């Protein structure tokens, strides 16, 4: 089985998207997001494993950051001043790998090895195996403290890179996030952006039925953060939030998303946290994402 990408055989010049005017950028990002979703579905189909719900909910925010805002490329992968993108919700590695492959960090065909024996594409990302991965995440609540350290390093070194970190919403039940949130506000890390993939579902149930997070924006604001509460599946809204004035504070973007976004029968259903679609369901999903 081989991965198919850009079915019309007309690949987008993804490296050029960052320089487009904002409106056009948002439109191009939608196309890239659709391709990333197609790759995710195919990877999970081949591996017969993965976290499809969270992969599909975080896709638009990941794509918007990686292709629309941040200085992230294979050419600058070892540049000390590169921007840092950290996927704290490391179980959604398929989404990150798809983004990195489309950006040219490794061949798209390598996505077929996702979770295969000895593959560099482990179920959770490893920075020593894959260029473009900044943190070895997986256990939850690790990405934000690391991102805070990166943001401190950015200021201390005078190189002034941006750090974007993607967390789940259920993940915010880990206390280490709030330790880091205090540090970030205390140190006025306005070069740090947290994107919360607010899909309202965690592995076992709805977040609000497990350990309530709401009012989530108020929580971050009370910790001293600038808050943007937006539609997290809308590339235009994400672009606007990612580039908004931060008023000397760290910024949290509460990206309200649908878990499983883009595939009707997966959307907003708790059982699709890590369920694997049948062959028929894969075909249906790819048809919806055509």
């Amino acid at each position, binding site marked *: 089985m081989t991965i198919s990408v850009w079915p019309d055989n007309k690949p987008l010049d993804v490296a050029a998207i960052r320089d487009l005017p904002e409106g056009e950028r948002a439109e191009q990002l939608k196309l890239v997001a659709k391709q990333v979703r197609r790759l995710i579905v195919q990877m999970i189909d081949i591996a017969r494993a993965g976290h499809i719900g969270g992969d599909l909910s975080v896709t638009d925010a990941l794509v918007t950051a990686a292709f629309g805002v941040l200085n992230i490329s294979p050419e600058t992968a070892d540049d*000390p001043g590169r921007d*840092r993108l950290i996927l704290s919700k490391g179980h959604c590695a398929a989404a990150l790998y798809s983004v990195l492959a489309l950006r040219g960090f490794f061949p798209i065909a390598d996505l077929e090895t996702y979770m295969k024996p000895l593959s560099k594409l482990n179920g959770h990302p*490893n*920075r*020593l195996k894959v260029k473009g991965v*900044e*943190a*070895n*995440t*997986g*256990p939850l*609540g*690790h990405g*934000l*403290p*690391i*991102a*805070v*350290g*990166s*943001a*401190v*390093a*950015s200021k*201390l*070194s005078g*190189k002034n890179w941006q*750090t974007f970190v993607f967390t789940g919403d259920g993940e915010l039940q880990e*206390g*280490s996030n709030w*330790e*880091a949130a*205090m*540090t970030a506000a*205390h140190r006025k890390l306005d070069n740090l952006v947290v994107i919360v993939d607010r899909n309202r579902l965690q592995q076992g149930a709805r977040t609000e039925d497990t350990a309530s997070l709401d009012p989530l924006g108020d929580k971050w604001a009370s910790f001293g953060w600038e808050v943007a509460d937006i539609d997290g599946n809308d590339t235009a809204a994400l672009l606007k939030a990612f580039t908004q004035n931060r008023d000397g504070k760290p910024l949290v973007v509460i990206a309200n998303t649908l878990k499983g976004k883009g595939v009707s029968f997966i959307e907003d259903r708790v059982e699709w946290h890590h369920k694997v679609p049948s062959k028929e369901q894969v075909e249906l999903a790819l048809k919806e994402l055509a």
Partner: protein
Amino acid sequence: MNAHSSVSNETFDCRVAFSEKLIALAEADPRIVAVCNDSVGSSNLNAFRDRFPDRLINVGIAEQNMVGVAAGLANGGFIPFVCAAGPFLSGRATEQVKADVAYSNYGIVLCAMSPGMAYGELGPTHHSIEDLSWMRAIDNLDVLVPADPEQTKAAMDWAVASGRPIYMRVGRHKVPSVTPADRDVAFTFGKIDVTGDGNDVALVATGTLVSRALEAQAILAADGIAARVLNVSTIKPLDAETIIKAAKETKGLVIAEEGVLEGGLGAAVATTLAENHPARAKFLGVTSFAPTGSTDFLLEHFGLTAKGIADAARKLVG
């Protein structure tokens, strides 16, 4: 009182040497930063803070965050010395040490201040006696226990030069210098420093127990028992060659450490012996949660004294 001529009566808090060395290293290398958990005083970082206010990142009482922040700093090109009391660094942030430091292969020096039972009367919550077991279990993490100020400083030099993920105990309980005057370097990574060539018994010790083993060596000599002392300042990777040689050339080994017996230095030595040269051995350590008492009282309570080591040696060779 002091039976061994090489053990002086003057004793040192290794944190003093640590602090001086950290400043010297930071003067020479702008990548060096300190990260701590409201432990500026207990980690002896006041002078560092005054000299490099921007390079001391105090995250507050938040150990998981502290180690994660260090990983982010390392990602950004810095060499963090993470300074926190041993029990909280090793216990509260174990998963961060595993995932963010060791598995991520970052050059970070985790400095476990006041380890073992240095916090004496404060009790078992504040004793760092499980740390060697927990940290030894983590792949790609070097575990160091310098025995005196000279070793502490030399280990820090090595830590910076190596760029390795490192867990290092920094002693608070005062110890005499145990580094022989003829050594070019006080600490060689992965090498056990041997004092004497006695063929009756090998006294294998680490940290605070090294000076006590040297005193035991003198006590035993007066009884006509020839002992050699093995100062194990690199717990992991263990210098198996020197352990095996001692097992072959003596009648048995006494292993003494300021920590639990499950998984620490003794367990490492036992594995090495069992696989290579089974030998008689006696293991001394902290065998239960401690009662209330000073560090010296507690070391005596658990038999972690020169007399305790000598008695164990006599039983082995007798």
